[in-house]
């Protein structure tokens, strides 16, 4: 069993508070991803769990046993570092067996474990090489292998893919997913790449400036972001935000007026808003449609169209100088300067109050 519980964890470096009170529950077998922008504290949180940083206050429990003050090696955790941190003077085999040797394990047992890990990660032919003779992807696998042989309760990954080139990154992502499935272990994974978060996680923890913004499954966070930060962080390209003002609200929804003057009615709860209050409309690129310039809820001018082949992303500037990103089919023919009409899928739009908090939708849809 490997349940990790964090209670009100705080960490400061001198005057600066990095972690401002983290509360989190991680269940056995879960693949949890800590994601957030640079400086949000995700690496610090991971390192605190690992025992490489001391906490200022708060507690960490592993299977109901407190590990907050334990030395790293006593916590039954293994970590894969961003730079892999392989021992350059040791062979791959020695790198993987180092921990077991330190623990005084039987030589034959060590040999079996190393061979097994090497098989899982396809490192067999590389066992006698030194790290400097390996490629980036190979080094990374050795780093993972080093963790596997210890069979820890929890695997910790600190941005393991950020030093790889794009193609390799995709490949390793798949391997990591496969690894999680095969080993069926609890994994905590830190990244700034929201694509990795979305594809790998069972549970995503979005961090911002030392605080947890939201915890949930990827789809949950994508379709029901709790606030503007999470909404804007997940999803590529980013959700577009339009400032608006509340006109009226009743049990069928809320009527708002956009800066361009257009009015839309959103099926969201009207409890938290009052007439005249400022709100923000959030809409994802795939939920906006381009129509003829005389149709649609409002108009805009086409600035740039990025043709990816499968899709085209259009960057549109509305009359009120707002920016919108719109996803259109791959064969979209628009040209710079064209005026286009825009339609919104209102059931998929999000409304955020003046503190950036999401306003509840009246009925939950999609995922």
């Amino acid at each position, binding site marked *: 069993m490997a349940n990790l519980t964090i209670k009100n964890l705080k960490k400061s470096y001198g005057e600066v508070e990095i972690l401002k009170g983290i509360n989190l529950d991680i269940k056995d077998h879960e693949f949890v991803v800590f994601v957030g922008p640079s400086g949000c504290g995700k690496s610090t949180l991971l390192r605190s769990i*690992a*025992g*490489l940083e001391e906490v200022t206050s708060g507690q960490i429990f592993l299977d109901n046993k407190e590990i907050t003050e334990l*030395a*790293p*090696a006593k916590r039954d*955790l*293994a*970590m894969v*570092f*961003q*730079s892999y*941190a*392989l*021992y*350059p*003077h040791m062979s791959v085999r020695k790198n993987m067996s*180092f*921990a077991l040797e*330190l*623990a005084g394990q039987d030589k034959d047992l060590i040999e079996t474990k190393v061979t097994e890990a090497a098989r899982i990660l396809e490192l067999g032919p590389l066992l006698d090489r030194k790290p400097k003779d390996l490629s980036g992807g190979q080094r990374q696998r050795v780093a993972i292998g*080093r963790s596997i042989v*210890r069979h820890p309760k929890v695997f910790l990954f600190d941005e393991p893919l950020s030093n790889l080139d794009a193609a390799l990154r995709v490949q390793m992502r798949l391997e990591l997913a496969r690894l999680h499935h095969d080993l069926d272990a609890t994994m905590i994974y830190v990244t700034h790449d929201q694509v990795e978060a979305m594809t790998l996680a069972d549970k995503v923890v979005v961090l911002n400036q030392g605080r947890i913004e939201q915890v949930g499954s990827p789809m949950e966070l994508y379709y029901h972001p709790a606030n503007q930060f999470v909404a804007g962080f997940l999803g590529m390209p980013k959700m577009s935000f339009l400032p608006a003002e509340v006109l009226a609200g009743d049990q069928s929804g809320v009527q708002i007026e956009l800066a361009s003057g257009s009015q839309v009615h959103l099926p969201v709860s009207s409890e938290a808003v009052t007439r005249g209050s400022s709100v923000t409309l959030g809409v994802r690129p795939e939920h906006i449609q381009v129509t003829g310039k005389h149709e649609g809820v409002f108009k805009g001018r086409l600035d740039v169209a990025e043709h990816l082949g499968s899709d085209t992303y259009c960057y549109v500037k509305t009359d009120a100088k707002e920016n919108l990103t719109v996803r259109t089919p791959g064969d979209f023919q628009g040209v710079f300067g064209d005026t286009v009409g825009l339609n919104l899928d209102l059931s998929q739009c999000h409304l955020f109050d003046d503190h950036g908090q999401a306003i509840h939708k009246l009925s939950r849809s999609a995922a």
Partner: protein
Amino acid sequence: MLSLKHRRRVNTLLLGTLAWGVALAIFFPIFWMILTSFKTEIDAFATPPQLFFTPTLENYLLVNERSDYFHFAWNSVVVSFGSTIIGMLIAVPAAYSMAFFETKRTKSTLLWMLSTKMLPSVGVLVPIYLLFKDLGMLDTRLGLVIIYTLINLPIMIWMAYTYFKEIPKEVLEAARMDGATLLQEIWKVLLPMSKGGLASTVLLSLILSWNEAFWSLNLTASQAAPLTALIASYSSPEGLFWAKLSAVSTLACAPILIFGWVSQKQLVRGLSFGAVK
């Protein structure tokens, strides 16, 4: 006009010749010393000095005759290696702690340590001499070892510190997570990874101790006198044993010359107190 390529080649040739000329001129005294060591005393003192002569090995073979060369050489060895070993035993933990457990005071402590190296030895000649006299440490190898350890410690700590700083902290953290105790971390991971840098540190300390020519001249007489003192004794007008002097000098300088050639690049760091890398 000559083509660009042609001009470049001529330029390089000229510069190369000039460089060789300068180098040979600077190296000449050493060359001459080695040459003289193979002459007989008569040839050595000949006027004008001879470039061609019948070489002889008698100076080397009789190097022990005038004075007990091996005794002095042994003193040099004991004092250099002794102070280096003790120095490293103190310096490595200090450098480790300052490199990986940096506190607010680390930088100023380092700079302070360096500044003790800048203290002119002559300023403390008197008290040290008197202290040693009272403690019976004059003319002892132990006394020299202590002094040399003290004067070279700052550089050793400094060099080890800069080399340790280059080791990524994460590799040591990985060792910690793998279950290594502090000692295991240092012995099995840190030292193997930094052995190049530590070797240079050891070499620099050996060179500085071997060539040290202030305390070795003032604190020793006959028992503990190292090679520097032996050579200095050749300056008395006892006799002009130039060939023997050359032989003894060559023997005394050879190991250090080789050390220096081998590690020249790495020494710059220590010699310049890290200001040039």
